[in-house]
């Protein structure tokens, strides 16, 4: 019976380097695997987001309330779920999220007045529940009414508090980086 001959390693220094090589090689494969896993999670999340956009018809199906102008119904940090289906007519009392031309930040307020023509063209006025006056002062100079094209969506449902995380991430960028870093670390380290 033969004996497997294992060539002797030359000394403890070489031993540790070889060991590291093995570890490095092993980790690289696993690293690639985890990176791919991470990529899949990100893609799935994006697909779900795009799917939501299609189903609701809104370019921004979920928004976070940024101001207190709709208190006591909504507070800063509440999450709103929107739909923007063209078939749904805009009626008074509805809560709409709209953008003023030239401004990036959408506003969540309630429809106060509407004037709709036979052909469906509509102009409407909004007001925040917690504001003393209507929104004319917020509109663009010379603009007295909002139109369908300014609407991002209608609020159909909401969840309180959860959006606070995005507000924190916006106001404190260091917090955002910390969260992203921790998330990345977690995904890379975690074995499925």
């Amino acid at each position, binding site marked *: 019976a033969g004996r497997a001959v294992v060539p002797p390693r030359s000394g403890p220094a070489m031993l540790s380097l070889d060991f590291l090589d093995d570890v490095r090689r092993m980790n690289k494969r696993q690293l690639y695997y985890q990176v791919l896993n991470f990529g899949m999670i990100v893609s799935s999340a994006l697909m779900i987001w795009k799917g939501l956009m299609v189903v609701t018809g809104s370019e921004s199906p979920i928004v976070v309330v940024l101001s207190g102008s709709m208190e006591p119904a909504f507070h800063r940090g509440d999450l709103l779920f929107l739909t923007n289906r063209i078939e749904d007519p805009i009626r*008074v009392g*509805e809560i709409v999220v709209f953008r003023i031309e030239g401004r990036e930040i959408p506003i969540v307020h309630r429809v106060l007045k509407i004037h709709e023509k036979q052909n469906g063209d509509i102009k409407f006025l909004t007001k925040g529940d917690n504001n003393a006056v209507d929104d004319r002062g917020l509109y663009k100079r010379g603009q007295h009414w909002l139109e369908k094209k300014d609407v991002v969506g209608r609020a*159909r449902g909401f969840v309180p508090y959860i959006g606070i995380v995005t507000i924190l991430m916006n106001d404190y960028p260091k917090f955002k980086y910390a969260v992203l870093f921790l998330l990345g670390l977690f995904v890379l380290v975690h074995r499925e």
Partner: protein
Amino acid sequence: LRKNVEDFTGPRERSDLGFVTFDITADILNNKKILTSIFSIFDWNVKQLFLYLSAEYSTKNNALNQVVLWDKIMLRGDNPRLFLKDMKSKYFFFDDGNGLKGNRNVTLTLSWNVVPNAGILPLVTGSGHVSVPFPDTYETTKSY
């Protein structure tokens, strides 16, 4: 259930301005016809109701107009029965044009938005509505 008294219209620049005073007698709890659901509107998931009285009418210029005349926030725990008399509208009842003059078919309805603690935001229209006809002439004195 509501009662209404309409006053007069006055032109402002080129648009009709309507003045309506109204009484609201509403029993929000009992608005449902089924008695068994009396206590259901302010359930554990209802944070508040946003009530609003809106006027709906048609004019030559616009096929559909809706104007909120008055609104109120009713928090959970507030008295759900309203007895408001001789209320003036909170917001100016401007028409987009001159469509209020002689308009016989202005309908006032009370509706509300149910704001839950979390979940769907439905809009409910109360049962019953009142038609308010506007006169053919303008009032020039402002006794508002």
